[in-house]
């Protein structure tokens, strides 16, 4: 299971994150709004990692993180929002990157999480 959901409404940043997911060996799924993200996870079945920008249209912020955390193995927040870290710590998010983020650090994080997700494959799914 190497699927990585990218929830980001800025097309260029979404493209950058897609490149990084592919580079880390993941299969990118792109969503530009919160409701699209939830629908994408439901359609995809298993998702290893969700990279989430908190300020996307429709469903957003803590509600979006809570909705995704129940369905995916790991959530990583990548946001410019001031309360990003607060939301992240409240929802057991694996990592939180503040925009503009360190590309190398995110790359390491993705690699690690994809490896971890691979090893947790047969364990019961996490609950939020």
């Amino acid at each position, binding site marked *: 299971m190497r699927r990585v959901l990218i929830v980001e*409404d*800025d097309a*260029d*940043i979404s*493209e*950058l994150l897609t*490149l*990084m997911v*592919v*580079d880390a060996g993941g299969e990118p799924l792109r969503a530009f*709004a919160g409701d699209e993200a939830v629908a994408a996870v439901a359609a995809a079945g298993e998702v290893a990692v969700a990279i989430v920008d908190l*300020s996307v*249209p*429709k469903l957003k912020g803590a509600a979006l993180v809570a909705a995704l955390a129940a369905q995916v193995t790991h959530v990583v927040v990548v946001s*410019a*929002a*001031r309360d990003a870290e607060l939301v992240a710590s409240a929802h057991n998010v694996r990592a939180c990157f503040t*925009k*503009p*983020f*360190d*590309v*190398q650090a995110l*790359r390491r994080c993705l690699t690690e999480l994809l490896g971890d997700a691979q090893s947790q494959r047969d364990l019961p799914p996490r609950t939020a």
Partner: protein
Amino acid sequence: MRAVREADAAAIEHAVGSASRVLGLGRLSLALWDPGLTRLSVVAEARAGEVRMLAPAGPLAIDGVGDRAFNLRRTVVGSERPGERGRVAVAVPLCDAELTLGILELFDDAPLAEADVARLEALAPLVTRVVQHSRLVSRLDRERAIVAALADVRAAATQATDPGRCGSLICARLEAILPGVRVSLYVMAPGGGQVEYLAAGSEQAWLAEWRAIPLGGDNIVTRAVVAADFEPQRTVGHQSAARYGMLDSVAVSLCDGPHAFGVLIASSPQRIEPEALELLATSARAASVGLALALGVDAQRRAERRARLLATLALADPPDGVRPEAALAWLRGLARSAGEATSSRCLLAVPGTPGGATPLGTPRLGERALDAVQRARASAQAVRDGQPCTLLAIPISVGSPGAQLELGVLTMETNSRAIDPEDEALLTTLVGRVAAAVERGRLAEARKRAEREKDEVLSIVAHELRTPITSLQGFAAASLAGIGGASEARTRRAFEIIERQARRMGGLVSDLLDVTRIERGQLELRRERVDLCALSREAIERVSATAPRHQIELHASGEACAHVDPTRVEQLLLNLIGNAVRYSPAGGPVAVHVVREAAGAVRVDVRDRGVGVLPADRARIFERFQRSAGPDQAGEPGLGLGLYIAREIAVRHGGTLWLAESEVGRGSVFSFRLGGEA
């Protein structure tokens, strides 16, 4: 003054009765000269020992033999008297060493024997002595009373330190010993020019009208004040006094050293006799000492109270950052203290709220009186509870001229006809302090607001800059790290994005600079003749290049020229068309209509089928750093400066920009109009 006082009547009655019995003839009559009324009046008549005492009759009731006897100071025997034809009259003067006190007359039907005339002449000295004695007793009584009254006046004047109470006591004492005479006291009003009512012995109708008497002209009050010598100034039968049933009026100055500080006024429905005048003069002298003291003490007390209030004020500044409402509450407390310090009613009036009472209390003043003084500092005469009073109103306003905030009016109301300049100065100081405090508060609030706004703007700017920087930094770092491979196509794509995001950052910075220029009034226009149809076409082409999902149409025919700055108007068009694209995320048509209007004006409408603007946001979206807060808002949020800058550009051109139509979920039409004569 009556010819015979109550106390003397018995002695005279006895004397006349005895003489009548001794003579045993006709009717005996005693007439006395009344120095106060300057006439002879019959006071007693007796027949066979039966005496009838008479009230003073009309003017000069005695004539014929009586009058002659009085003037000649010798016995006159006559056979006639008007209306007494056939009767005999004998008049004997009652003389002491210098004066003729009166006459004793005997009337009989038959001629009198010489012996009877002699008996009458013999009785005259006895009656004279009785009259003299009674006069002396009366005079002694009166003088004793006067001495006692003066002692009372002095005591009243020195014991009471409140001028009003002191004055009332003095007047009451004088009225008690001068029957029929009404006494009142007036003191110099602040600033001079008039004397104003201080006290009276008993309430009189005329006091309500004469609360203050202006000085100047030929009247007894002015004469008394100018003379300043305790000499009674008198007027008899003056018209204005006659209106109140007063025949005689007397004014005596109240002096402290060589200067008059007030006047004592006595009025009577009868002539005031010389003795009474003397008493009034002496009383005025005695009263002056105490009154001057009381007035001095009072002035000193008021000065002390004012000083204390100012000291309190200096120590207890209103809290910094005080809001107008809090300042008014604070001032209301001060108004109370000011009222105590100035012995007046000080009230705070604040603009009323429609349909409700003012929260800080409404002064119970005549609306018109308040209106008269509300606009500017002024004093006015007013009437409260039927009594005249003087009203001073000082508006409390803060801010610079033209941008004033009216907090209310501080009013002072006194029973005087004039406001004490010292009191006015005190109130002015109070108002000044409050206004300054409120102004400080307002500045502090404005500073805080500016700080908050600055923080908010910085936060918005920082947030908005993060997005392009994320792309710039991300693609640059990814390229360097070889993420996504090192193919030429990949590298080119990275550079395209870097270039676009750098341009986006440049746009944000330009907008910020434009806002600064607008706020400093430095947005300069380089006007030239421009075809808005052509300009719109260019703008549409530029937006279309970045919005492949949108169909942007131009509806225009021929030329629509205006004298405008092409760069700025293109910026305006790009803003409106860019917004139309941004707020129709699902794509869809955007239409730009260029319309030639009357008088050379050109109107441009930009119509989209996007999300629309919520009714609550329709005014706000034209403000700086404001963005539509629609829940389904999509695309890049931006700084919220586009419409603000666009409208400013239109306004700087002498035009307008407005939201012509909008329906949530159906789209909007933004329009602007430029050129033309208007």
